[in-house]
């Protein structure tokens, strides 16, 4: 399917001064062509289709409801971004210090993956689990080894390119990612841990994660996103698709501690089937701009999802969390809690939607967003929405924006703490409530430490 125009573009990119392997190339049809080389036809067709959707989709505008609070035209220039050089070409021994430090803090795991600049550079998995049929591998390898699994799920109606401009771009240009497959009734006691690192300022990194938990299985997946601070706008784009089949239990945690300069865009979709439990926790601490689109679908009776999130911003950080809870089957439940603290000139937007579809009777759905404002110049926007088309439901939502609890502060001051110490404790207590709802090995400690570090800087 190579068309002449794209071939010309691709060759002109190669003619740039330094014709080395890792010459950064711009985000264009040529990049799609290169990624499709040697790929099965279903995949190159999906990439091509996604690219055409990307080209046909206008840049998100603040005139649209979904992007009301994040002005992409001001915050990101696609033309300035370059595809990141292949991270797999670096040697294993030369891992960046920041990445190693983060991994050293990790507690025990059933398996690890390390992703550098969009390429999986390391995978290990408990051999006992491997024997039971658990698959943990890079998507690049999975394309050849588990093609049928990817073809069934990856970038299908779970997260189609039509969902938005960024989703289309990711579907066209993803370079690598992680596949986790858990066979029926296999239960992992320890989490799978993934650490993702970006090393090039001005680059664009596109990764995907696919987790399939078969009936009766149990798994937790914890990933961490890291980088240095960058001078040039850098794009970290990720797409996460999680399927919990009947009775499966899945926990997904993402701790985002990217450096300043990064525009972190991620789309997450969770599908919870009959009697399954599928929970997510998103911790947003880093990056200059964070945009999360999370959609949780409750597809079978008895399915339940918790959606947890916390964010803490300072300086000019900008957070935009967009969530939706779709109750499609009757007798399902979901509970969302997103809490955030904002200091300096930080801004946040939370836009949540509970949709109870016609016929989804006996739905229990809740949604809470709480914001703590610590400075005169910060800004919080909260849009907790409900759309209910069934009558036998219990739904409620709440949103608050407030300041530090003066009574709590006074109590701590009276116990001899300095104002700064007291404020830090109150903030930690406020955000800590979220993590207490999903206590996973090492996550609470790690996030608490990261928040403390941020509070110290203030």
């Amino acid at each position: 399917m190579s068309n002449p125009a794209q071939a010309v573009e691709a060759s002109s990119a190669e003619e740039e001064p330094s014709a080395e392997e890792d010459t950064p190339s711009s985000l264009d049809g040529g990049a799609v062509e290169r990624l499709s080389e040697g790929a099965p036809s279903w995949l190159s067709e999906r990439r091509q289709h996604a690219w055409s959707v990307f080209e046909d989709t206008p840049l998100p505008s603040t005139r649209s409801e979904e992007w009301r609070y994040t002005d992409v035209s001001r915050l990101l220039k696609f033309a300035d971004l370059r595809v990141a050089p292949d991270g797999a070409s670096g040697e294993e021994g030369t891992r960046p210090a920041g990445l190693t430090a983060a991994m050293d803090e990790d507690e025990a795991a059933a398996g690890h993956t390390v992703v550098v600049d969009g390429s999986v550079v390391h995978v290990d998995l408990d051999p006992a689990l491997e024997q039971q049929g658990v698959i943990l591998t890079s998507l690049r390898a999975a394309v050849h080894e588990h093609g049928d699994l990817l073809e069934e799920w990856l970038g299908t109606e779970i997260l189609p390119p039509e969902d938005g401009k960024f989703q289309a771009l990711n579907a066209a240009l993803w370079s690598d990612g992680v596949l986790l497959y858990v066979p029926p009734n296999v239960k992992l006691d320890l989490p799978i841990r993934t650490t993702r690192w970006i090393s090039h300022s001005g680059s664009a990194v596109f990764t995907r994660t696919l987790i399939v938990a078969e009936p009766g299985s149990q798994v937790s997946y914890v990933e961490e996103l890291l980088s240095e601070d960058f001078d040039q706008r850098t794009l970290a784009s990720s797409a996460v698709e999680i399927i919990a089949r009947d009775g499966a239990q899945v926990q997904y945690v993402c701790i985002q501690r990217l450096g300043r300069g990064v525009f972190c865009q991620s789309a997450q979709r969770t599908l919870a089937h009959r009697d399954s439990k599928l929970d997510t926790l998103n911790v947003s601490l880093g990056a200059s701009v964070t945009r999360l689109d999370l959609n949780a679908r409750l597809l079978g009776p008895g399915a339940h999802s918790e959606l947890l999130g916390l964010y803490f911003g300072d300086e000019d950080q900008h957070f935009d969390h967009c969530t939706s809870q779709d109750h499609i089957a009757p007798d399902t439940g979901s509970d969302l809690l997103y809490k955030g603290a904002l200091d300096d000139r930080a801004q946040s937007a939370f836009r949540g939607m509970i949709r109870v579809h016609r016929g989804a009777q006996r739905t229990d759905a809740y949604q809470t967003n709480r914001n703590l404002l610590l400075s005169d110049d910060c800004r919080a926007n909260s849009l907790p929405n409900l759309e209910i088309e069934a009558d036998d439901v219990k739904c409620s939502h709440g949103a608050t924006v407030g300041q530090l609890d003066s009574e709590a502060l006074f109590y701590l001051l009276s116990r001899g703490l300095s104002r700064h110490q007291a404020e830090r404790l109150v903030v930690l207590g406020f955000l800590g409530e979220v993590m207490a709802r999903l206590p996973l090995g090492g996550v609470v400690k790690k996030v608490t430490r990261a928040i403390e570090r941020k509070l110290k800087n203030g």
Partner: protein
Amino acid sequence: MPENELVEGLGLDEYQYGFVDEETHVFRTRPGLDEDIVREISEHKDEPEWMLEFRLKALKIYESKPMPTWGGDLSHLEATLDEIYFYVKPQEQMERSWDDVPDTIKNTFERLGIPEAEQKLLSGVGAQYESEMVYHSLKEEWSSKGVIFDSIEDGLKNHPDLFREHFATIIPAADNKFAALNSAVWSGGSFLYIPKGVQLDTPLQAYFRVNQERMGQFERTLIILDEGAQAHYIEGCTAPVYSTDSFHSGVIEIVLKKDSRFRYTTIQNWSNNMYNLVTQRAVVNENATMEWLDGNLGSKLTMKYPSCYLVGEGAHGEIMSIAYASDGQHQDTGGKVVHVAPNTTSSITSKSISKGTGRSSYRGLCKVYEGAYNARSNVECDALLINSTSRTDTYPYIEIEGKRATIGHEATVSKIGDTQLFYLMSRGLTKEEAMSLIVRGFIEPIAKQLPLEYAVELNRLIELEMEGSVG
């Protein structure tokens, strides 16, 4: 008995105001809208040149603005607007005595109970029929104290300076597409001025009636409360039921000066073929209090979000909203509070009931600007769903700058609980009685604020009908 019928037993669905009078207009424009029609309306009103220019400019803005894509379904509105009459003049002049009002029109208002209520309970009455105020009166007691309560046209004629100082300053023509439309073709509405320190002890009422089929009503109201003044204004509206759609788009501007207090009560009971798209806004100065009490029971689609701009320190805004959406109806209502000055407070309470294929949506904004220190706002929305085909939505916008604000929003959605019903029935109530008691209890926090003694039709609709079904 199925729950559906039980709720019908409450009487909320019976439309008693769908009767039609014979057409009595003395003039009307041809259907549709263009510059000539705007000029014609202006000519009939014998207006100053600046008003004609204002209208023509607004028409251009209206034409340039796209149809909103949010809120209700407006996809058929464009076609409707091509066919409706934008101006229908029912009689030659406005009267000060009911005896001078033509019999057909007078009978209509008598059937609605207006003259009777006027004698007993009101400080003044304005009645609009089609495009013009046909009757306006104010008790001598108040006119002697300098209160002005007149049609908007007479306000412009007799008090040009006061009028021009405030007109379109609170809701400029460019505010939204329908405010622009109203600015181009406005006709009828009230002009109210309450002087310093004057406090009206009984309400003023304006009544709006559309009789003509395929009619557009565009009333414009300007209300100014001087320092320390107090008043309560009630607005009611009804229309006959036609198979074609009609259109109502009002603009209500209110200025509250220091220490004044005002309540604006709407009892909207348009027939189910009416598009009702209204812009209502109050600017609230130092220590003044504005209360919107918004009851939306009728219409095909209502999009209305009364708002308070709290611009003076210590200003307070309150919005209480009841919406009832039955088969084929969409009530897209709510409120906006904008905190600009320090120590301002506000609250929004919304209660909605959706029945059959009815849909009620709460849409609201709470905005706190930097510098509005110690702003406090609380929003509560409760929705009651009667059938599995009913729908409810909640779309709140909370936008806060700076750390010294305290804002809360809460919403719940529920159906009439079996345990509630069981408990009441175990105490000897029939299912009908229990249902009606629960619905009444649900809306009671707002319903008790309503001026039941004189809001004749709401009295009938909510209180009496429900009492009847219990007793």
